[in-house]
């Protein structure tokens, strides 16, 4: 039997980076095939090639033994019967379920959409998926799990033979996940081929037949799930030398004084009963999977979101932080995860962005002194090695790593003593990563304290003095360096059994 999908020697470059390196991989008809790997290993890129999002790559893709090259996602759906199950965030809430499912491919009668036919088709599919809602219902009333079902219905609507699911359970509850797996089993029994991307290994063991592991753009192994172990998969996933980059060169400097202490902090629906502390001169890691609630905790500590309970102590004294201005007054800075949408002003040049949080330092008689802003900017361009060192360049035109440094400079311009970095190296190339790690060390050497939220295990283990692990809105573990093991962290991050003990 020919394979449903075969990738042969696929390589893909982005400017300056190789994201896929000679990947050869075949997916059998009617199997559930897991695609595993850390962030940035190349899973999404591979899927995007299959779905026609990227049409420029080297190597060949075969469907049922036929060589194909889709120029856009529409061709992949129409000609290849390949459909991607998007995450529930792609549902348009203001339209009906049926309209969502058929979006772009509505059956027509003359110039008008044939809604009776559309809803009839959609309802048949929803019935097959055992959904309780109907095509005529508004999408706004659906839960996250139901939205995921709508996304699957969309794939079935396109009569897909191959569907891919990218982290489908990321925002699902346990019963919803069970229902989803039931459907996946049934689709598989009906002969459909499913590519399944997930960071949650137990799911892979529950529903997948085979698993392919990507690491830094290489295909390192394809395993029969029934014959492998969790440990073996994790070993393949992490078996590399990244920790050589994310390591500490300077001695650790954590002092006993607690500069920040968070007690029983809760935010309804996002996280609950989160308690932790940060010592002076410490780099504190926050590990966990995407969506574990780490970003939300940090935003609440910073005052950007409201807490529904708990308290924050700065130097042992209760602090009322209800806005980012309060946080600034208490000496807390936050470097947000989404640089482009939250980190800097699109229309400001580097000088303006760096000065924004510390404008009162540049005032004379109430007026902002441009020359002081400029010399401040130049100072940080030098110390942080910002490239190109041009104060008048718009920050949006800088590269990712340098944007990150500009945002860092903004906070260093203030006199905050606690800095929270949310995914500081996200989208940053390897060389800039190493520089950012050095900067973190510099900061603690100056007596500042740092919290690093990171989803990259080698990174968080390499640079932290201590690590908290979060899962589903709760802290599941607090680890000292002696316990920094990827297996252990992954286990806690995925809600591992051991957390019952605390």
């Amino acid at each position, binding site marked *: 039997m020919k394979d449903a999908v075969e990738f042969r020697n696929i390589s893909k470059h982005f400017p300056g980076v190789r994201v896929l390196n000679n990947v050869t991989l075949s997916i059998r008809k009617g199997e559930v095939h897991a695609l595993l790997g850390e962030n940035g290993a190349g899973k999404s890129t591979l899927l995007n090639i299959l779905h026609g999002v990227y049409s420029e790559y080297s190597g060949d893709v075969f469907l049922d033994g036929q060589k194909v090259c889709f120029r856009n996602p529409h061709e992949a759906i129409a000609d290849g019967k390949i459909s991607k199950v998007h995450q529930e965030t792609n549902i348009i809430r203001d339209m009906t379920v049926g309209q969502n499912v058929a979006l772009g491919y509505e059956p027509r009668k003359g110039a008008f959409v044939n809604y009776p036919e559309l809803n009839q088709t959609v309802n048949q599919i929803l019935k097959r998926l055992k959904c309780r809602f109907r095509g005529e219902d508004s999408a706004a009333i659906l839960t996250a799990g139901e939205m995921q079902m709508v996304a699957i219905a969309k794939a079935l609507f396109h009569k897909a033979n191959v569907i891919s699911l990218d982290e489908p359970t990321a925002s699902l509850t346990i019963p919803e996940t069970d229902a989803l797996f039931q459907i996946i089993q049934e689709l598989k029994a009906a002969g459909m081929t499913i590519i399944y991307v997930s960071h949650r290994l137990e799911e892979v063991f529950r529903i997948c037949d085979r698993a392919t592991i990507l690491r830094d753009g290489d295909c390192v192994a394809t395993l029969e799930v029934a014959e492998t172990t969790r440990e073996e998969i994790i070993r393949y996933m992490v078996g590399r030398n990244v920790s050589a980059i994310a390591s500490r060169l300077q001695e650790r400097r954590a002092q006993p004084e607690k500069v920040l202490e968070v007690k029983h902090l809760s935010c309804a629906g996002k996280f609950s009963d989160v308690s932790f502390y940060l010592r002076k001169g410490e780099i504190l890691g926050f590990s966990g999977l995407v969506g574990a609630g780490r970003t939300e905790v940090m935003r609440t500590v910073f005052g950007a979101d409201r807490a529904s309970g708990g308290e924050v102590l700065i130097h042992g004294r209760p602090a009322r932080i209800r806005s980012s201005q309060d946080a600034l007054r208490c000496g807390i800075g936050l470097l947000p995860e989404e640089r482009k949408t939250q*980190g800097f*002003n699109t229309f400001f040049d580097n000088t303006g962005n760096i000065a924004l949080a510390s404008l009162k330092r540049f005032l004379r008689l*109430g007026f*902002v002194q441009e020359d002081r802003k400029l010399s401040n900017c130049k100072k940080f361009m030098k110390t942080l090695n910002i490239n*190109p060192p041009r104060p008048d360049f718009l920050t949006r035109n800088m590269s990712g790593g340098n944007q990150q440094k500009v945002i860092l400079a*903004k906070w260093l311009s*203030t006199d905050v003593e606690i800095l929270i970095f949310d995914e500081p190296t996200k989208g940053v190339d390897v060389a800039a990563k190493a520089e950012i790690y050095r900067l973190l060390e510099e900061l603690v050497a100056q007596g500042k304290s740092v919290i690093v939220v990171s989803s990259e295990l080698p990174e968080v283990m390499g640079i932290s003095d201590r690590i908290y692990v979060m899962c589903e809105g709760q802290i599941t573990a607090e680890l000292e360096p002696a316990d920094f093991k990827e297996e252990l962290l992954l286990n806690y991050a995925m809600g591992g059994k051991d957390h019952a003990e605390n």
Partner: protein
Amino acid sequence: MLKIRLKSRTRELTVLAALIILIAVFSILDSVYLTPGNMVDIIKMATINGILAIGITFVIITGGIDLSIGCTFAIVIVAVGQLVVEGVPPLLAVLLGAVLGVIMGFFNGLLVTKMNLQPFIATLGTMSAYRGLAYVFTGGWPVLGIPDAYRKTFTTKIMGDIPISILVLFAIAIITHVVLSKTRFGNYIYSVGGNEESAKLSGVNVDRTKIMSYAICGCCAAFAGMIMLANLGTGEPASGQGYELDAIAAAAIGGTRMSGGKGTVLGTLLGALLLAALKIGMIVVGVQSFWQFVVTGIIIVIAAYFETIQDKISTAMFQHRNRTQTAR
């Protein structure tokens, strides 16, 4: 340094160039156009729209819009008119009028921030409500018999033929320019419009910045209204209709970005002058008045198109420079 300053002023320079070309063309068509008296007329004509436009520029830079300025304008006209008719000293009346404008702008700001309404809808609502209040206040009748003492505060001519109202325009322009470009508050206005979330996460009090912008906008509308009252000598509750659109047009021509983050007082002022120069020019050369609307519309569209081209050019220039720099 000068080069950098001029570069960041490209937009204003373009509008200035367009204004000069326009004046040159009309002067060739009719020599009356270039007389000092006519130039003063152009500025006079630009005064009310200019002040309104400067105010709305603040709001637009924060990413908002204020449709109610024409109605704030009307309320201030009838209220101040009534005050001076009843014998309140002119300067005190002006002060009270300004405060009234601030209050109405402040209320718009509250709706937009504390109730989290979309600026378009919030000020569409207050636009209707403020207009209604102006009618209710006078029972639909104009306020008549505005004393000369009040009218003279704005219409007295100094330095030959220049009325005080023009000085008020320039005074407002200079003050707002300094506020916008030299103060912390000004910086915050741009930061809120360019990226509200990033501004918030940088410790900027976003709500306060927005509310103050609306208040400034209301205050400007009040001054425009009080000048109108002095010019006409009657307080007409129906006045100011459609003025918000002229003000938006002036701001847009001057390079204010409608979704926020960009714009200058100088650009807006030049935009208002350009519109006035165009109107007067068409009157002087005798273009039928209906065509004036058509031409004004075309100018707005061209200005907007120019903005997108300019963006493209500057991006291309940046990429070119970046390449040459890496090559070195």
